[in-house]
């Protein structure tokens, strides 16, 4: 067994599992553990069963495990639901008296946390803080971390609230120290030396990237799992003078960012597959009018409404082909929180440089999973504007918005900055932007928007990530969030050597590079959260190479490290 634990807190929606999860992430990171955490939510506001999963280890973590070592059940239903997903020797913390559980089970560890909550805080709400203390006690971290986590979680609240939560946590902690006889869950802390580092999820990283890239206008319609992007950017809107506008629908959202971008402001929207379906018309408009936009598509299972709060990678082919007509686009599929941050910045630069739509394809798993990360190296960021500067604008007369150039990119002027007027049209148009029916003009404009821009874009594709490839028995292939699980499988596989290739950008497809990487591979398996093996199909279309097999998962749940390992053995 490696030096790691999987912890689960489970209960009804509305019991505050998210708050307790955030507190625990902070607690264990500060105690020096690497963490990876994710919520499994049902699409409802109250009731049902939700759980927060947290892995802690002395090594960096990138994915989840199927079974948990420690489960805290906050309601009776959770006991039966989660009993079967425990590791051998794992413990399930429950309040026997409160839940009226009579049966015996070796895994059960009875903690009267309801009584403790009422005694210390005055209400059942404080079970969250009791649970924090209980978990810290089981793992054996020092009690000072518990206190610190409570202070941070309830910072800004009344003294009394903070004190009660601290008391509740301490009672939980002390109870475990006196009553838990087993030491099996004590793992070594202190793996991270610098604990002054961030914890964030994928959506947070996108927002930070967008703000750093100079996004000044954000418009979207709320849709899981993209909604927290709007919430987080709204939190910082005042500070950075960003206008965040909740649009009446996704059609309006994309047309609004096109309008703002046309007027000269860097703009972004985010949605899930269903919302993107409504945006497709606007995507084509951005391409035709050559207006730069950044669109985040956070995938969730579909068709139609699907599993609203769960994960999938089934919209790869959709985003590659979305939009009527033919035009150049960039599609990024970052695999980690760090990559999301830097790729978001790149997406803004590339969209503006080529005057095209840039799509960032993520999914619920990447959007909502928290990890401790190294602080971003902000020095390597360069924001370059690809517009005619205000200064230079004063000299521009007889402006042609769609002037033909070798690169297909016409110098882009900002309305009111130049001394001339600007015509932009969704109809086929002349270099001046006026409507035309001319065949020759139409042909040249298609080549400008499609061939010429594509050729430039292809020169600056994000390189595939290559890992443990040398003499690998099996090479995994993935895009987006599966980076994490492939990385951990590759790091821990024992009987066979497993390497992987991950694509942080899927379009333009790095065909030559991929052909070179895979041509001598013994056995290539694509790992995808979809039913069609869409990445494998894309690889074949672009390189002629066929994978030896695909490990597919389309049940709305992410791959787990152990689950993928088993599947590879079977495929293998």
């Amino acid at each position: 067994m490696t030096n790691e634990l999987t912890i689960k807190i489970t209960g009804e929606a509305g019991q505050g599992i998210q708050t307790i999860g955030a507190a625990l992430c902070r607690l264990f990171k500060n105690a020096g553990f690497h963490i990876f955490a994710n919520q499994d939510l049902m699409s409802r506001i109250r009731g049902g069963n939700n759980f927060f999963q947290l892995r802690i280890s002395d090594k960096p973590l990138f994915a989840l495990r199927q079974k948990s070592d420690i489960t805290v059940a906050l309601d009776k239903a959770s006991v039966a639901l989660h009993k079967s997903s425990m590791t051998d020797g794992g413990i399930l913390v429950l309040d026997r008296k409160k839940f009226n559980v009579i049966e015996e089970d070796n895994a059960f560890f009875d903690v009267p946390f309801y009584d403790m909550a009422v005694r210390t805080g005055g209400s059942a709400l404080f079970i969250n803080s009791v649970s924090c203390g209980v978990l810290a006690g089981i793992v054996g971290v020092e009690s000072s971390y518990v206190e610190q986590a409570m202070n941070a979680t309830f910072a800004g609240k009344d003294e009394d609230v903070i004190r009660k939560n601290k008391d509740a946590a301490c009672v939980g902690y002390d109870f475990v120290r006196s009553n838990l006889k087993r030491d099996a869950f004590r793992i070594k802390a202190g793996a991270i030396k610098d604990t002054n580092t961030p914890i964030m999820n994928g959506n947070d990283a996108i927002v930070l990237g967008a703000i750093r890239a100079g996004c000044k206008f954000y418009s979207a319609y709320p849709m899981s799992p993209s909604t927290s992007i709007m919430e987080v950017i709204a939190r910082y809107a005042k500070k950075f003078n960003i206008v965040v506008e909740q649009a009446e629908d996704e059609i309006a959202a994309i047309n609004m960012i096109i309008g703002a971008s046309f007027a000269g402001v860097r703009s972004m929207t985010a949605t899930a597959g269903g919302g993107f379906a409504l945006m497709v018309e606007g995507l084509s408009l951005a391409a035709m009018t050559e207006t730069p936009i950044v669109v985040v598509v956070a995938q969730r299972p579909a068709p139609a409404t699907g599993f609203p709060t769960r994960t999938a990678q089934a919209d790869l082919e959709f985003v590659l082909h979305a939009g009527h007509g033919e035009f150049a686009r960039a599609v990024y599929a970052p695999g980690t929180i760090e990559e999301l941050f830097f790729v978001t910045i790149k997406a803004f630069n590339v969209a503006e440089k080529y005057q095209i739509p840039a799509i960032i394809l993520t999914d619920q798993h990447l959007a909502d999973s928290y990890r401790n990360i190294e602080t971003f190296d902000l020095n390597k960021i360069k924001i370059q504007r690809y517009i005619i500067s205000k200064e230079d604008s004063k000299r521009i007369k007889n402006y042609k918005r769609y002037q033909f150039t070798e690169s297909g990119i016409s110098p882009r002027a900002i309305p009111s900055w130049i001394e001339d007027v600007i015509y932009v049209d969704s109809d086929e148009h002349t270099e001046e932007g006026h409507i035309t029916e001319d065949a020759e003009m139409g042909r040249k404009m298609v080549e400008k928007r499609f061939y010429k821009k594509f050729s430039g874009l292809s020169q600056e594709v994000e390189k595939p990530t290559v890992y443990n490839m040398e003499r690998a028995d099996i090479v995994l292939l993935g895009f987006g969030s599966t980076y994490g699980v492939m990385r951990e499988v590759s790091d821990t596989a024992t009987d066979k050597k497993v390497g992987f290739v991950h694509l942080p950008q899927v379009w333009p497809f790095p065909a030559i590079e991929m052909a070179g990487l895979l041509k001598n591979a013994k056995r290539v398996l694509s790992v995808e959260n979809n039913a069609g093996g869409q990445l494998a199909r894309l690889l074949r279309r672009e390189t002629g190479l066929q994978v030896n097999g695909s490990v597919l998962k389309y049940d709305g749940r992410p791959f787990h490290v152990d689950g993928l390992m088993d599947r590879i053995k079977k495929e293998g």
Partner: protein
Amino acid sequence: MDISDFKSNEEIAWCPGCGNFGILTAVKKTLSQLARHPKDILFVSGIGQASKLPHYVNCNCFNGLHGRTLPVASAAKIANRNLTVLVTTGDGDCYGEGGNHLIHNIRRNTDITVIVHDNQVYGLTKGQSSPTSDPGYVTKIQEEGVILEPLHPLEMAIALGAGFVARGYSLETEHLSWLIGEGIRHKGFSLIDVLQPCVSFNKKNTYEWYSKRVYKVNDNGSYDPENKMAAYEKSHEWGDRIPIGIIYRAEKETYEEKRGLSQGIPLVDEQIEDVDIKGILSEFV
């Protein structure tokens, strides 16, 4: 500025006698009186005959998608409040395809002026009914006549809280030009529905039909456009008599004012190369 400053050399693709010509004349006249340079004026249009108008004036033009004018126009105004933003759209574009955007952009109340060329028929697709077609109006598709209740744009706009609601008639170019000017001067969302005969497809609502019915709502000086209930009543008048003029007007705080965008530098002029995120990054620790 002179009217010649707004002259475009584009060939006009409307049918001879089209009601749009009167609107174009009125628009140009208004622009020439605005004391604004063409580079500071933006026309946003969608799809339909009305949406070709921006090509026939010398101003900035964003000719986007069918029905999607208002999100583009509002956002362009948000990005650069120094632009005077006008929308030229039709009854299909604005009331049909773009209905949801109309509702919510009235609520949004950005300072834009929306001119709806309303000919009660679909011209570019050759003669189908529009949301404002009169009941019983026969087309190749509505063979037994239109059975849907017509949309009442002015009533709807007043109900939604629009601060400037007006109707013009394309033959009354002087009056229309004045209306458009008032719409531009009004701070916030202005809706100007313009009766505009389609000489090719609408054989019912012709120049003759409209001319017989329209009257200026405040000809005798007794109409008070600030009385909301009276305006609501007036907006419903349709049939033997059709009022034109400012039906309703009210001062309202605009989106830009509420957002604090009417002061300071416009968003478009912000430097973005060196945004410092160190402070907020530390909030994630």
